[in-house]
């Protein structure tokens, strides 16, 4: 039994981190069509924010909770700066945006190395997250369960924002028809900016989860960016439920493959599975009903 529960639960935790990383992308890529390769570095910025918060507020019990909104803000502001400084000039050049943000990612990585050192810094978990819960033979660490809570909260918040608020309606209107939205009096520039802020901020929250799971290090973004993109694509653009399902599947499948084979083999097979899946179903898990996204 435990040979089944262990990968299932570890995979679910991994999937949760992947989901938070992918949620922001689902917004910036899925809704706006902007490919931000520096998204992984926003994740890294969130992780370092967690570390810095812990330096300032020494009580780990408080600092991690405090780090969540701060990381959201830090990564969000980075995203806002990126949008205002670079991306807004390039909405008509998606592939070039991709490359420019690769450059931004490199600069941010090197900056983190210069500021914090290449080694990476440890993040202490709060006392209330120490220990583990034994589920059918697997000692499930509370920190890993916490990432799931964080993912659920982020998802709920984002869904509520998109579905329930006036601003959410404005985002959806802009995505569906930019010109018409503008005619209706929506400032699409403002919508772009705030969407990017929220999407990037979510990466910061993902960074808190990553910091708790494995500490900080300047290159941590690179190991999440490609899987997160694949999750968004495989889930179906503009489809949050697709993103959720895809993130969970990728996490769990990787965990099972890791259990059966080895970590490296698992990575290779998961990638191959996603690519093959996209061949069979390029529109992703769920079909989109907006224009121009096929």
């Amino acid at each position, binding site marked *: 039994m435990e040979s089944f529960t262990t990968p299932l639960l570890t995979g679910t935790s991994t999937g949760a981190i992947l989901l938070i990383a992918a949620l922001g992308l689902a917004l910036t890529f899925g809704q706006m069509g902007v490919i931000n390769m520096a998204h992984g570095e926003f994740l890294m910025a969130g992780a370092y924010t967690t570390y810095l918060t812990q330096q300032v507020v020494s009580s780990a019990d408080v600092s991690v909770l405090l780090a969540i909104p701060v990381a959201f803000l830090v990564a969000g502001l980075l995203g806002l700066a990126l949008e205002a400084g670079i991306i807004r000039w390039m909405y008509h050049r998606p592939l070039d945006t991709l490359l420019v943000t690769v450059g931004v990612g490199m600069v941010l990585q090197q900056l983190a190395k210069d500021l914090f050192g290449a080694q*990476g810094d440890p993040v202490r978990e709060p006392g209330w997250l120490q220990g583990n819960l034994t589920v059918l033979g697997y000692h499930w660490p509370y920190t890993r369960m916490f990432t799931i809570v964080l993912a659920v909260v982020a998802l709920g918040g984002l869904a509520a924002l998109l579905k329930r608020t006036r601003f959410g309606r404005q985002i959806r209107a802009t995505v569906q028809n930019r010109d018409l939205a503008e005619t209706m009096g929506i400032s699409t520039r403002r919508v772009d900016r705030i969407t990017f802020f929220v999407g990037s901020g979510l990466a910061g929250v993902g960074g808190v989860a990553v910091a708790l*799971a494995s500490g900080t290090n300047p290159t941590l973004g690179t190991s999440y960016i490609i899987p997160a993109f694949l999750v968004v694509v495989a889930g179906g653009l503009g489809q949050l439920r697709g993103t959720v399902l895809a993130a969970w599947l990728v996490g769990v499948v990787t965990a099972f493959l890791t259990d059966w084979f080895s970590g490296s083999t698992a990575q290779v097979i998961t990638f191959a599975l996603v690519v093959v899946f996209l061949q069979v179903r390029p529109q992703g898990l769920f079909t989109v009903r907006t224009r121009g996204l096929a």
Partner: protein
Amino acid sequence: MSTSRTRLAASTAAALAAALVLSSCGGSKSDDGSAAAADSCVDTSGDTIKLGFLNSTSGAMAISEQTVRDSLLLAAKEINADGGILGKQIEPVEEDGASDPAVFAEKIGKLLTSDCVAAVFGGWTSASRKAMLPVVEGSNGLLFYPVQYEGLEASENIYYTGATTNQQIIPAMDFLASKGVKTLFLAGSDYVFPRTANKIIKQYAAELGIEIVGEEYVPLDSDDWSTQVAKIVKAKPDFVFNTINGSSNVGFIKAYYEQGLGPDTSPIISVSIAEEEAPAMGKDVTGQFAAWNYFQSVETPANEAFIEAFQAEYGADRPTSDPMEAAYTSLYLYKNIVEKAESFDVDDVNAASDGVSFDAPEGTVTIDGENHHIAKTGLIGRINAENQFDVVWSSEGPIEPDPFLEGYDWWDPSAE
């Protein structure tokens, strides 16, 4: 566009390409097969002698290799203050290996053939050493490599001042056997050193009657160890043998403690966690073990002087570790060989190297002229609350280096 012009252009292109390739091949048919090592261009006429320091000061390995660079520069400064080598002041030529094997190969070529240094000191990863090996052999140069490694190598042009497997891995196994360990779990990065080390461990474990209850590898850059650690929890081994590289250790240690493991249940013995790494684990690792040939806590007069000089140069908060000590030692060993040979010439150095020794911080070390490794004492340390290591076990005196494990009859290189 007319087809004739297109065709003309195509045939021109093809003909040109063929001509170029043929001409360039034909133009240089000369002494294939014969070893045509370039003549040494080292200039020994002046008051100084150039030595190359080749470490990664950028990229993922920079944090580790910078410490080696620091100790090399310290040794050079001390030797210069003491009159230099054969009366010549050391003139360091510093290069960055950029954590990339291809760059190491390129830069050691530059140091040996373009800067004409008498010897190169540096390298860290096995990949960097393997990449430099053909270059240093091809130009008959000298490389001093300061890091413990997976053994099974001996080059005429390389001196290995870190441990080979019979000076680190095998003593660690002897220590485990002395503790009455019956079951062992192997956790490593998916890399040459862990794979080779574990091959040796498995064969020696069979000899010692220790059962291997699991063997797991994770990609070098991976932080997620939760699945593998769950297997350790299930296997309940007496000890975990950790051959994980670099920052991946953080994720491993984290998952290990989070799933309820600790030094009381399944303690870890590591071969890559030293004084620098221990405080960066994010968990209190007190009580865990490590196998090295040097700890900062080693009590020798030479070590006292080394630590004092190092901290005076770089700050009192800087710890000293095994690879740093091995690099520091390598430069002094080179000085001693050259002064015995009374020559900087590579062949003279090789002829004189056997038996040359140095009172290193770790204790007296002696070069084996046959395989270019040095005799070292195997030590096991236990991490204390200050992230220093208390020596809990040591081999009986320095162990003669045996990179190919020829003196161990249980070793079968062709077995799995």
